[in-house]
């Protein structure tokens, strides 16, 4: 397609579209850089956990407290929520509001379920004598796992805000950008959780 074929109006329109597409690429790359820096934050927390992994100070050990069946359910909730977010994204790309919103709602509920289980687990551990003050191990455990939990909380708040945005503006370009950034964030949280259940829970239960 040569530009001489296009009328002036079409050319302006084309430029705008080009600008929008460029902005979408920029926004998603900018958000990707945030994800990378968040990765580095989790890397330092994992490093601290690894260094502290044997520092029990004579107190209760993870092997005595971890309940792997419980962790397996938490893992299932988060993994499935990553999948349902993917379905919401497909609904959004098909411009199907009902489909997008239903899948997003399911994702938020799965996230809330995960969060509820995590809070229950923390209360149970504290009750059994494993608080962040107990030992180096438990300090690093709570720092790592609770940071992930706070991210999940932020993700759920973000999801509820997106419901407001989509109710107001529908499938606008801005809303699509917001949704794909949140999608990246949510999948990233599931990827961090893979490392948490593998290197904290499974390794700690051995």
């Amino acid at each position, binding site marked *: 397609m040569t530009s001489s074929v296009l009328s002036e109006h079409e050319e302006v329109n084309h430029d705008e579209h080009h600008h929008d597409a460029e902005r979408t690429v920029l926004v998603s*790359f900018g958000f990707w850089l945030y994800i990378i820096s968040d990765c580095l934050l989790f890397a330092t927390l994992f490093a601290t956990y690894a260094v502290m992994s044997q520092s029990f100070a004579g107190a209760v050990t993870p092997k005595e407290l971890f309940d792997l069946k419980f962790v397996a359910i938490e893992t299932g909730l988060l993994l499935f929520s990553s999948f349902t977010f993917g379905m919401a994204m497909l609904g959004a790309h098909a411009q199907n509001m009902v489909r997008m919103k239903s899948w997003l709602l399911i994702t938020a509920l799965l996230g809330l379920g995960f969060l509820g289980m995590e809070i229950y687990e923390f209360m149970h551990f504290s009750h059994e004598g494993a608080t962040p003050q107990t030992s180096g191990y438990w300090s690093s455990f709570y720092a790592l796992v609770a940071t992930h939990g706070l991210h999940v909380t932020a993700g759920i708040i973000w999801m509820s805000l997106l419901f407001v945005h989509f109710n107001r503006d529908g*499938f606008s370009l801005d809303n699509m950008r917001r949704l794909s950034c949140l999608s990246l964030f949510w999948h990233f949280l599931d*990827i961090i959780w893979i490392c948490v259940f593998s290197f904290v829970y499974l390794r700690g239960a051995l």
Partner: protein
Amino acid sequence: MSNKHEQTHAGEAHGSTAEYVRGLIISILLTIVPFYMVMSGAWSDVATVIVISLAATAQVLVQMIFFLHMDGSSEQGWITMSAVYAVSIIVFVIAGSLWIFEHLNHNLLMGH
């Protein structure tokens, strides 16, 4: 609606239902295997730790490919570059910390 056309084409690849289902099934398998190994306790600790690490690495890659649609193509050059950068920093931070503190504990005769 020219906008509609623009939106469906704006941004990155967004996969298909089949791709997400495939990613989900592989992820479930890669979760069940290490959980089963630890819960049954039938294998040695060394073998179990190796399988846990391999399954975790594989699952991270599977989710990056099937859920985040990363494929290392030239349009994703900066994303791939920054991911490689992040992975190398992560390896330095974690391996370096463990190395330093192991020597520290050894020198202070805290290790056994």
